[in-house]
């Protein structure tokens, strides 16, 4: 197994994309205590929007606008039609509901687009390499890292500098007390769902660059890996969850490129064996170093 600069760049890019997915999943978990298993299907829907836009010959920016419109609309519908009516139900009920939504969306895509899927070619120009100090690195690797860094920075500003950000943090810590203080749960959850959807749209754009063939199970495997990463990092806190997503993406990206072709089928087994090992050693999460600071 040989690790090249491109492998490392691919690992960083996939880590960045997974970090964004982790934030998207973590934000909704924070305010709803809901692990949204259907998150991957939002990415899939956005990817199909990009594929259709490129099939219709639309310019790149309109394809991206369509992608955002589709994903944000689906996110809001998911919240209004499923999450909101089930709010207050047990976590098991909510989780099964997200499973149902995931399989519903996947099968709708199967009906509409077939199992062979569609090709999204509008942004594949980012797959061409840039030469940096004699090392060739695909543009998407650099773009993904920059986009993820900017998104995370903006999100951090929103959470720490704005009223709605403060309300989101309070709701994720203790939603009952936050509501008792006048924080509007519907508004906070709605904003979290929208931000989560916007991140899913960004992920859809970046993943279609790396994998232009969009099928109904697009991003499904990525979502499972990210969910594992989020739990490994520490589901209850946004920064550990994001780090967990990044690390598992980085490891998957580097190993995926470095493993010989005839051994690459063992990659998921290797990654999930590592996940189990980490959870056995640190069940509260690899990056959750928080301590209870409350005095009595």
């Amino acid at each position, binding site marked *: 197994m040989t690790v090249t600069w491109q492998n490392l760049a691919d690992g960083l890019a996939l880590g960045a994309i997974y970090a964004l997915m982790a934030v998207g999943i973590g934000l909704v978990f924070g305010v709803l205590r809901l692990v949204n298993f259907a998150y991957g299907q939002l990415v899939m829907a956005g990817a199909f929007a990009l594929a259709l836009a490129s099939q219709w010959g639309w310019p790149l920016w309109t394809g991206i606008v369509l992608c955002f419109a589709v994903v944000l609309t689906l996110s809001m519908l998911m919240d209004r039609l499923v999450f909101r009516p089930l709010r207050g139900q047990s976590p098991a009920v909510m989780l099964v509901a997200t499973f149902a939504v995931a399989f519903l969306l996947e099968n709708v895509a199967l009906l509409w687009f077939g199992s062979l899927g569609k090709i999204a070619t509008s942004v594949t120009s980012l797959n061409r390499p840039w030469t940096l100090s004699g090392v060739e690195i695909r543009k998407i690797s650099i773009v993904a890292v920059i986009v993820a860094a900017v998104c995370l920075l903006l999100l951090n500003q929103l959470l720490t500098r704005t*009223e709605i950000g403060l309300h989101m943090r309070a709701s994720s810590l203790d939603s*009952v007390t936050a*509501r*008792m203080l*006048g924080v*509007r749960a519907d508004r906070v959850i709605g904003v979290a769902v929208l931000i989560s959807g916007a991140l899913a749209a960004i992920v859809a754009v970046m993943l279609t660059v790396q994998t232009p063939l969009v099928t109904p199970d697009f991003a499904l495997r990525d979502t499972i890996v990210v969910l594992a990463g989020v739990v490994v990092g520490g589901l209850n806190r946004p920064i550990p969850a994001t780090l967990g997503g990044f690390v598992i993406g980085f490891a998957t990206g580097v190993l995926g490129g470095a493993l010989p072709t005839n051994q690459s089928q063992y990659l998921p087994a290797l990654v999930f064996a590592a996940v189990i090992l980490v959870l056995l050693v640190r069940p509260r999460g690899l990056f959750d170093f928080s301590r209870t600071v*409350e005095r009595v």
Partner: protein
Amino acid sequence: MTLVVEHLDVRYGGVHAVRDLSFTVAPGELVGLIGPNGAGKSSTLHAIMGLAPGTGSVRVDERELLGRRPEEVARSGVALVPEGRRIFAELSVEENLRLGLAARRAHAGVKQVFDGVYEQFPVLHEFRARQAGLLSGGQQQQLAIGRALVAEPEVLLLDEPSLGLAPSVVDVVFAALEAIKERGIAVLLVEQRAQRTVAASDRSHVLGGGELRLTLGPQDAGDTEKLVGAYLS
């Protein structure tokens, strides 16, 4: 605004926690709710705040509160200082206070409101950048009251604010309640310290088994026999 509670009943499944309870708290009044554990004191506050299911009527300024969500009740001018303080330990003192603004209806005058809270509780100004979980119990209680005051409520509910506090800190809390009452806020105080509550309140309702058993005035604070009798009745 006067808080009017009429024929309030609170049930949790088969448990009848509050039975046919009626009382009022007018602006500038401090009314105590005392009684043994399980008497229905906290359930009353929770029902007013929309945190527990209740029947009957709870009105503020002729607006019915029963059946409303907690955030709507808070935005109607009612604030609760909950038992155990429930401050956000990971957020700073100032962020905790800013959360109180969520229920505030007016947008202007935020600085004056904060200045007023800092004047009443100087320790909150001193430690405004500190993580709230690092404050002492008494300081956290002051933060919980300050957070409620930031909303500029017209009705303030307090659930055992002196629980677990040192006697000197309890004095600070009761002095603060006196000052809050003088600002024209209707204050409903649930407490275990019966004698102290009866002495500080305009009237105190003794609850037992979810029912109103007796109403005492401040003149009864020194009458230990009457107090003990009220608890045992």
